[in-house]
């Protein structure tokens, strides 16, 4: 499909067609199409090595595509890099901060890179320190900041120039549960102000917060849509939750049963994928008891995105790009 016709719509923040990246023989991104609407929080999910970072780098104009094309905020990522860079904010997977600067110096550095004048700089830097909860740490050296604070600082650096599109690559990896929530509060705030956000994450509870999602696997998009749509479309069977005091034994016993297609642990609860919940519940109760495994409860449940992730990327019949 030609991009020219789409780029005039003004509605899309990102349009990619047949976007491809090869490293030697390896096809890291394999002809993907993406459409991200303005104002949307778009989650980009997939297993390690699926091509998420590579895609984002191409969309930022940092890395050349081997084939295909992409328009970001109406700019061609190949030929219009400079104006594009002025309108996007990118936070890389390993945000490279300068360890020997203080928090304020770091923010100010980025504000200068984006050519803000002294007054705006001061306003922006002060504003971010206030709103991101960094107050009190202005003079701390970046090297001494722990995970959550570093991530907030890195986000601050990416938004100094008030971009229209934020590309966040695993912004919450290694961040504690409370900081993670606070970080998402910040993301929402930008979204509410009209900023488009594309974000990668391995936390499936975070993925539930996105307006729309795409799953990439082996360089190809294997599922796309709102979280609810994806759940409806991609689970090949019914899901049961089983709780048992000896959950490791229960897991092993369940895996041995022919009608259990997949068994996985969520914390200490088992999730079992079966063809039909109604027949499987009594069968399980019987078979686990016969195997000497005590069970507290067996109940059908609504799938979480993590169940879908396993289905889409695991070796489960009906899942995966070739399934």
């Amino acid at each position, binding site marked *: 499909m030609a991009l020219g016709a789409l780029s005039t719509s003004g509605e899309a923040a990102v349009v990619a067609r047949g976007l491809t990246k090869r490293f030697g023989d390896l096809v890291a991104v394999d002809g993907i199409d993406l459409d991200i609407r303005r104002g949307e929080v778009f989650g980009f999910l997939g297993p390690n090595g699926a091509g998420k970072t590579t895609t984002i780098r191409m969309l930022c104009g940092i890395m050349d595509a081997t084939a295909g094309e992409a328009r970001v905020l109406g700019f061609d990522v190949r030929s219009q890099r400079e104006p594009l860079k002025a309108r996007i904010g990118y936070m890389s997977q390993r945000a490279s901060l300068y360890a020997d600067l203080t928090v304020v110096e770091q923010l100010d550095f980025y504000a200068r890179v984006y050519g803000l004048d002294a007054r705006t700089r001061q306003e922006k830097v002060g504003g971010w320190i206030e709103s991101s909860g960094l107050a009190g740490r202005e003079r701390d050296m970046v090297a001494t900041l722990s995970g959550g604070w570093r991530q907030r600082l890195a986000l601050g650096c990416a938004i100094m120039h008030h971009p229209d599109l934020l590309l966040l690559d695993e912004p919450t990896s290694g961040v504690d549960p409370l900081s993670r929530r606070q970080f998402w509060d910040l993301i929402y705030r930008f979204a509410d102000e009209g900023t488009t956000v594309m974000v990668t994450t391995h936390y499936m509870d975070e993925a539930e917060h996105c307006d729309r999602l795409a799953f990439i696997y082996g360089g190809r998009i294997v599922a796309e849509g709102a979280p609810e749509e994806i759940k409806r479309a991609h689970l090949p069977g019914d899901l049961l939750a089983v709780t048992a005091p000896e959950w490791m034994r229960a897991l092993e016993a369940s895996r041995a049963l022919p009608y259990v297609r997949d068994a996985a642990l969520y914390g200490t609860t088992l999730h079992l994928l079966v063809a039909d919940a109604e027949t499987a519940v009594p069968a399980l109760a019987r078979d686990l008891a016969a195997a000497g495994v005590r069970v507290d409860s067996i109940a059908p449940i609504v799938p979480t995105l993590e169940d879908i*992730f396993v289905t889409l990327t695991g070796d489960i019949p009906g899942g995966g790009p070739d399934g």
Partner: protein
Amino acid sequence: MRAPPEPAVVIQDLSRSFGPVKAVDRVTLSVAQREVFGLIGPDGAGKTTLLRMLAGILNPSGGRATVAGADVHAQPELLRRQIGYMPQSFSLYRDLTVRENLHFFAEIYQVPGGEMASRTERLLAFSRLGPFERSLAEHLSGGMRQKLALACTLIHEPRLLLLDEPTTGVDPVSRREFWSILYDLNRQGTTVLVATPYMDEADRCTRIGFMFGGRLLSVAPPAGMKVQMQGEVLEIVAEPRRRALAVARGLEVVRTGSIFGDTLHLTVPDAASAEPQVRAALERAGIPVRSLRVAPASLEDVFIALMGQAAR
């Protein structure tokens, strides 16, 4: 009667300061053989500093610790042979391939030749790095590199593992496979001490320690942690979620509120009295409530609540 076996880790009043900052402040803890002990706490609580002292990499400023029978201060050589330590940023050899990295670490730790092949295959399988065994480490994605680091730590099957946020950036499927390897090692006798930001991982530990501001504030099995939480959790399904959250947070009875997967979790002092207030406020704001129930506290709720209690 036989004497109980020596604990795997004995920590007595262990402290470490950096200038005026008490990164670890008089921590006392004993971890039994074959435990899987989880360390949780906010960023900067002191988990990494504690683990580094236990690995014999950082000297304590006070107190003492014995790990796998070795004194961390006096016997660092002995200590290092007994343990596997995975720091937060593990140094792989970027110019070696995946397989070469594994062999390199196997050699340092003198893995018997006959064991090499089967361990390597198993670790390549869990990490799904098999197809990449000939790729240079520097060409791997972030999560793939993390998994290779894990594999390198596990290759000598040490008696005690000290793991500092080992699954950061690792995808959900590999994360599980990693934990199933941990359990297998554990069943064969390995003791595990692991710091993690993932509450579902903490939930699988035999006991959890919550650190805050350098102190070890509480130690309990996961179920015991949940009991310590003051207040109750209301779980709400209401759309639009974000607006519902804003309304709920504005209420006096709501201590903390957050989005939890596709629901809202509110902690309140008393569910029975809070419920009608929350329901009324949402309805006043024109937000239909699809369901509202008292939910069992998850470890994530507990974490948030403990943070609030510790900060007060």
